[in-house]
């Protein structure tokens, strides 16, 4: 008979402690409720991928259809195209967009003129703060056929005879997407690496330079290994996002229907069939497919990284 009393006592004291800190609890409860409503309820909504969702009947009344929408997607004539675009655009973004800020940080680290360094940093951070609408507007203007600066430059260098309509030719689209992304993100993405480099022990450099190591050797043998853990962590996160090739950039710069065979990725496809065509269940199934693959990729990348001693978890 003893243990139940202790249990109730314990329960009581937990309850008492809880009510004693009601003002503290009041700080977190509203926030948690918000997150529950706006993040968890949509997670539950994912189940409609297995239904023929009917907007009038709601989720409770709609018919369950199993994997029908997934099969529809896999047999869609555009499935291959969309997957290819997603993986290629995302892959190119990682291949070029991932090392670029690291290289920028390494270069900035070599600059001794503080004024120059500050100006370069301020200017290269700036594009991060512009919206994609603005960036797409800039790109459209620079790439314009008649008055675009790029065509003017290429003509003056005598590299082309006639202006090129860059934004309506499929072959150029991926290059344009990669460049605009690089333009927008390189400076800001470099901040983390600059901070990591600043944390490297200066004695290492002194010792190396006494040993006669050139600046390049110091960069290669000290700086890069020192910031490796942070590089690995960011790389894992990138790989986990392999199926998120981008959304706003592709939607805005790829708005020309001619470009759709090269610009449509999973996310823009979900938007188009989901919001514009109201195929809710189908679009949710496509989105869920993407989420599942992403989690698998994240886990695999983390496992590989763990072998090298750096991992996210």
């Amino acid at each position: 008979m003893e243990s139940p009393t202790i249990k109730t006592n314990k329960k009581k004291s937990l309850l008492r402690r809880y009510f004693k800190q009601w003002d503290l609890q009041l700080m977190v409860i509203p926030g948690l409720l918000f997150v529950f409503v706006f993040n968890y309820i949509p997670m539950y909504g994912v189940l409609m991928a297995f239904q023929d969702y009917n907007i009038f009947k709601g989720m409770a009344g709609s018919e369950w259809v199993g994997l029908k929408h997934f099969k529809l997607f896999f047999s869609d004539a555009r499935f291959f195209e969309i997957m290819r675009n997603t993986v290629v655009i995302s892959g190119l973004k990682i291949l070029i967009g991932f090392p670029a800020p690291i290289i920028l940080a390494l270069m900035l680290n070599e600059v001794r003129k503080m004024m120059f360094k500050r100006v370069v940093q301020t200017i290269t951070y700036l594009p991060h703060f512009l919206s994609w609408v603005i960036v797409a507007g800039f790109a459209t203007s620079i790439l314009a056929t008649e008055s675009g600066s790029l065509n003017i430059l290429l003509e003056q260098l005598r590299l082309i005879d006639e202006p090129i309509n860059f934004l309506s030719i499929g072959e150029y689209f991926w290059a344009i997407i990669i460049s605009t992304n690089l333009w927008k993100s390189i400076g800001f993405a470099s901040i983390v690496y600059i901070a990591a480099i600043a944390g490297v022990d200066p004695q290492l450099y002194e010792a190396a330079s006494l040993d006669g190591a050139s600046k390049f050797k110091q960069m290669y043998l000290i700086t890069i290994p020192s910031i490796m853990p942070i590089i690995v962590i960011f790389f894992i996160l990138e790989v986990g996002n392999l199926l998120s090739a981008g959304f706003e950039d592709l939607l805005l710069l790829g708005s020309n229907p001619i470009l759709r065979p090269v610009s449509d990725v999973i996310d823009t496809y979900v938007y188009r069939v989901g919001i514009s065509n109201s195929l809710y269940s189908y679009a949710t199934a496509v989105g869920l497919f993407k989420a599942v693959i992403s989690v698998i990729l994240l886990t695999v990348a983390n496992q590989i990284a763990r072998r090298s001693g750096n991992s996210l978890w």
Partner: protein
Amino acid sequence: MNKLTFGDKVMATIIYTALALLAFVSFYPFWNSLVISFNSGQDTMLGGLTFWPRDFTLANYELVFKDKRLVNAFFISVMRTGVGTVLSVMATAILAYGLSKKELIGRKYFMIFLIITMFFSGGLIPSFLLIRSLGLMDSFWVMIIPTLISVWNMIIFRTFFSQLPAGLEESAKMDGCGYWATFFRIVLPLSGPVIATLALFTAVFHWNDWFLPSIYITSENLIPIQTLLQKVLNANTVSQSMGQLDAGAAAHMSRLTTVTGKSLSMAIMMVATIPIILVYPFVQKYFVKGVLIGSLKE
């Protein structure tokens, strides 16, 4: 101090050149658009405009500030950014402060509950249907409420709060302050840099977001400037027409023949960009630190 070898000098030259080039490329699109926005539209159509306006005019801006829809969209953006930033930063900071207290019952579970949302989400369609069933469609608050709590910002806040010296809060407690009073009187005044950083990021998000209004808002008078700009630019590329503007402005425009769709778009783009550029230098020194706090959570 260190002797520079020949190789070091070559490397330095390459680096300075590359960085100068990068700075130029980063700045040029902005400058070129500014030039076009101050140039008469007809002259711009002749092409060749690169560094300076050839036919300087303020007509583009005149038209922007005369168009009621544009001015209204600008104020909607200002309102959204102001209200959204204050509410979101406050709500997120209060949640983070509560979660920074070790004595909070359920703290571990609350954290897991929140962190899960950083990796899993319902995606576009279920969120869209939720907003619709909540009756938030086509209201000003749809731009504020769903993004009120940012888990990422909460983690940065929490890291900062838990690093504050414990003694400060204890003395407040001795004086009879509860959690709320301590938070507002002691903790917030000490959190200037981190608040500035996160407020900047939140404000930038609210100012720049065009997508949520484009799917959730249909009333003309609630559309923020970025969404309106997107519509204008889209109409320009597809049809090269200026049919987007209302009749009054169109009539006005035919009088001011100097204005074209392109020069007008550039002026709107500048109006949508300049507020950010004005705020940014003041907070730049803070956000570098803020990013660092966020990235060192691992």
